């Protein structure tokens, strides 16, 4: 009898939160290096990573590594740095919102499960 309490949705939301946290970390690293000469901004393709994570939940794989790559299409300043303050601020706000959305969804799902477990109380 498998007692582990998890649903497909809760696993998906957990991966979503992992990805949002990764995006926040990348953005923070970019922000910290806004004045480092020659630094190239790092980024990740959130949608692609999320698609892969969703299919991973279905196939019951573990979490996959996040593909970090330098962002294209950014303009480099004379010192070689191409970090854009506006872009990073926006990304951080987005990542934060995604994270909080995940928390809300997860809490809802857990509440549902707890209600089911205690249905006779």
């Amino acid at each position: 009898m498998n007692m582990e309490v998890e649903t497909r949705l809760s696993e998906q939301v957990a991966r979503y939160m992992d990805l949002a946290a990764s995006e926040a970390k990348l953005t923070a690293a970019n922000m910290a290096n806004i004045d480092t000469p020659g630094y190239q901004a790092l980024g990740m393709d959130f949608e692609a990573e999320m698609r892969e994570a969703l299919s991973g939940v279905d196939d019951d794989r573990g979490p996959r590594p996040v593909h970090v790559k330098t962002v294209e299409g950014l303009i480099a300043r004379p010192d070689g740095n191409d970090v854009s303050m506006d872009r990073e601020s926006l990304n951080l706000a987005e990542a934060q919102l995604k994270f909080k959305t995940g928390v809300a969804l997860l809490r809802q799902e857990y509440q549902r499960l707890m209600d089911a477990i205690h249905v006779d109380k």
Partner: protein
Amino acid sequence: MNLFGLMETSGSAMQAERMRAEVVATNMANAETTRTASGRPYRRQMVVFAANQGDSGFATSLSDAANQNIARLPTPGSQGDAAAGVHIAAVVEDSAPPLKRYDPGHPDAGPDGFVSYPDINPLTEMVDLMGATRAYGLNGSAVQAEKSMISSALEIAKT
């Protein structure tokens, strides 16, 4: 690197930017210093930013963290040591030649009557200071965002 490591990253940036601002302040204060402790005129100082070790291994540590299955935890200290962020690699002196002004009566005048002043342009320094302030504020708001994320994560288990 976990979410707490995020605060270290942003914190390192704030520290670096503050040092940069301090250097700017020193430059401005010594714009007219013709004789320092070493006897020569003051030379303009500049900071050199360098990304922390972790940034080159950032992709690795990120992938390690994302690869973590709750059922397969790494041993403590095996990763998460790579701190991303930035630090001041060096404070270097500007190699530009000093400004010379003709003033034979000055105690620091050379044999030719010229006094050497540091080549510090207040406008340049102010722009530098503004850049430092802006970056400081940017990373400060990043810290706020990170704090908020961690608090909301703590609410997952709140009944």
